[in-house]
């Protein structure tokens, strides 16, 4: 995806999206290295997986906030968006800490896991709100619309998977495969948006509302 953005001269405009994708690639290489050297059940791999996951989730959160900044760029409210984003992130971290504060052992690992889960849900709600704002403001940039919708699909699949994992923990074998499978969708759809859609492409949001008019 980063290569596609670079080829289409969109690297700087969508910088946080590209940073997330580049970080995702580096983390995947790191995970493979830990998996190869220490094995799937090793604490080294589990810790690396957990900490890298929360890091990636935070990068993705900022990628989403950068999409907010793009949608609201004409209103010149970037500083308010940034401040609100940081406050929400701190609030989510405090909430995650309050949830796991009772458990005495491995408090940092529990915190990291909880924060990652909560950020996925916060990301889903924020993407939903952003989609509402796009429809309300009649945003017409096709590429931006597709980037937001792809992110919405990604967040909702992950939030649903996490909820299912909590509801049916015995099916952990299934959930292990579902997450990586759907994880491929985001880079693919983002790459498609960069490769196929020029920045100038426009689209009427009235055509995207699901309810027939």
């Amino acid at each position, binding site marked *: 995806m980063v290569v596609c953005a670079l080829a289409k001269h969109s690297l700087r405009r969508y910088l946080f999206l590209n940073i997330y994708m580049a970080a995702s690639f580096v983390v995947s290489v790191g995970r493979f290295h830990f998996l190869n050297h220490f094995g799937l059940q090793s604490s080294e791999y589990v810790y690396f997986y957990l900490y890298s996951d929360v890091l990636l989730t935070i990068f993705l959160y900022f990628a989403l906030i950068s999409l907010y900044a793009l949608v609201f760029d004409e209103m010149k409210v970037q500083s308010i968006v940034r401040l609100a984003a940081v406050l929400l992130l701190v609030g989510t971290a405090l909430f995650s800490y309050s949830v796991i504060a009772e458990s005495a052992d491995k408090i940092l690992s529990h915190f990291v896991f909880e924060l990652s889960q909560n950020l996925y*849900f916060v990301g*889903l709600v924020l*993407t*939903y709100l952003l*989609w509402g704002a796009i429809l309300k403001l009649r945003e017409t940039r*096709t590429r931006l*619309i*597709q980037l937001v*919708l*792809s992110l*919405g*699909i990604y*967040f*909702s*699949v992950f*939030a*649903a998977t*996490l*909820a*299912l994992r*909590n*509801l049916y923990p015995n099916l952990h074998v299934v959930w292990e495969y579902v997450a990586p499978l759907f994880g491929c*969708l985001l880079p*693919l*759809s983002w*790459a*498609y948006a960069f*490769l*196929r*859609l020029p920045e100038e*492409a426009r*689209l*009427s949001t009235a*055509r*995207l*509302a*699901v309810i*027939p008019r």
Partner: protein
Amino acid sequence: MMATGILLFSLAALLQFFSSYCRSLIAASSKQPLSPEVKDVTGLTKGASGDDFARVIQLLHLCPERPEDRSSVQAIGAYFRMINFLRATVARVVPSLRAWTEFERAQCAYFAAVALDRRIAFSRDMLAQQMDT
């Protein structure tokens, strides 16, 4: 209880995001005119209808695949099945929904025809490159 709530919200959001994403793909391709050859091959001379979708997809699978449109074609395939399900269930009792599902199915068929057009052009380019070398 909390997990069930999150699951229901996520699934509702997923459905909405997915439908809107597919409609954005369709809308982006609906502006592109079809070449006379594709109109001829697919039989879409008087516009597309939902019943053409399966045939156009079959033709699409005969052409060499382009990696960049694989995921979008699959997404539209899933959207078409979803619309078919709606048509066979809820749309039977809601007439306005029936007209809407027919329109959406036709749009899916047109999207597939545009993808076919691109694949044919892609195959031609590849062949031309091979002839040159």
